[in-house]
């Protein structure tokens, strides 16, 4: 009789241990962030049909030349807004843009595709510094910036926003919250597509080629 009771306690304990082990195991699975990571949404596109004309713009490129709406004509231009002290989002986007750009066909798409990085931090990003920064990612990339007023006007046309955020206890050091979408301007200087983050270079390249096929590649337009 005593042995039977002991056996019963033994089995009860064993049962609870088993239940505990199973629940712990399944709970671990649920809380594993690397599994959640797999459900990160894929890239998407916001298309503007018809595309939105961008006119009367004026900024300065990293070679000191004026960058106005005429510079878009005959080219397909990817635009990204950011700042050079941006440690994560901007390099990630520029590496993605380099992957898109480097994957284009030489002598065809590559011939009139441009990548332009717009610095929204003219206080710290001199033209020289901007030149060094963008050409690090690809020697053909172009950095542009201007006065705070010019940048505000330029960004406004793209619906891009940015705001300085002072880092607590770090004095004058600041970060900049900013629109992290990749924008695409067509060969007629119109905003045609916006690619919100996270970005997938292969997806953006495929969408880009589709848009060129649909709207014309732009060769034969005024090229500069």
């Amino acid at each position: 009789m005593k042995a039977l009771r002991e056996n019963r306690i033994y089995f009860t304990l064993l049962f609870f241990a088993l239940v505990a082990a199973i629940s712990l195991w399944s709970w671990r699975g649920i809380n594993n962030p690397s599994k959640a990571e797999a459900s990160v949404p894929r890239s998407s596109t916001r298309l503007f049909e018809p595309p939105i004309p961008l006119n009367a713009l004026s900024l300065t490129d990293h070679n000191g030349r004026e960058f106005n709406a005429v510079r878009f004509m005959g080219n397909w231009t990817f635009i990204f807004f950011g700042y050079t002290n941006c440690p994560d989002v901007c390099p990630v986007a520029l590496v993605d843009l380099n992957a898109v750009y480097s994957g284009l066909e030489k002598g065809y798409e590559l011939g009139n595709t441009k990548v332009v990085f717009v610095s929204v931090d003219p206080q710290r990003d001199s033209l020289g510094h901007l030149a060094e920064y963008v050409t690090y990612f690809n020697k053909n990339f172009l950095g542009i910036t201007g006065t705070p007023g010019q940048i505000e006007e330029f960004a406004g046309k793209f619906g891009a926003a940015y705001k300085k955020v002072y880092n607590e206890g770090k004095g004058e050091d600041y970060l900049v919250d900013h629109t992290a979408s990749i924008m695409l301007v067509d060969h007629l200087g119109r905003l045609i597509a916006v690619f919100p983050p996270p970005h997938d270079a292969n997806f953006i390249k495929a969408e880009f080629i589709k848009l060129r096929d649909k709207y014309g590649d732009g060769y034969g337009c005024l090229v500069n």
Partner: protein
Amino acid sequence: MKKIIIFFISIFMLQQALSAASSLEITGAWVREAPPGMKMLAAYMVLKNSSDKDITLKEVASPQFDSVEMHRTEIEDGRSRMVKQDSILVKAGSSFLLSPGGYHLMLMGPKAELKEGDSVEFRLSFSDGGELSLAAPVKKDTGGGMHHMEHSH
């Protein structure tokens, strides 16, 4: 009867002792090489907690930078925002990913320019008083699937 209870208690205690010994493991740590003159860099890694206790990363320091902070890039309506994290909780039995476009270490004020091939020393302090030192290589991010993916090298 007593023997059985003692047996279970001792198994339980042994398990606790074993899990405390193998607390946190760091894999795939790397520092993104930055263009010349950059004052802010980012580091990424995987924190793997194979114990059955939650572990909180409280502080990170590096002798090669003025300061190191834990940050998260948050995207809202297509806008990015860097949100400072006071700590990072690595739950029992799970991995926590610091990767481009998400959680990362923000490295501020490099004392010397870092190039691919260099390495950065880090010291991580945890809430239980534990500390971990590691050296992370500086690498060029060449894209092509490096983002949002676990590193295992």
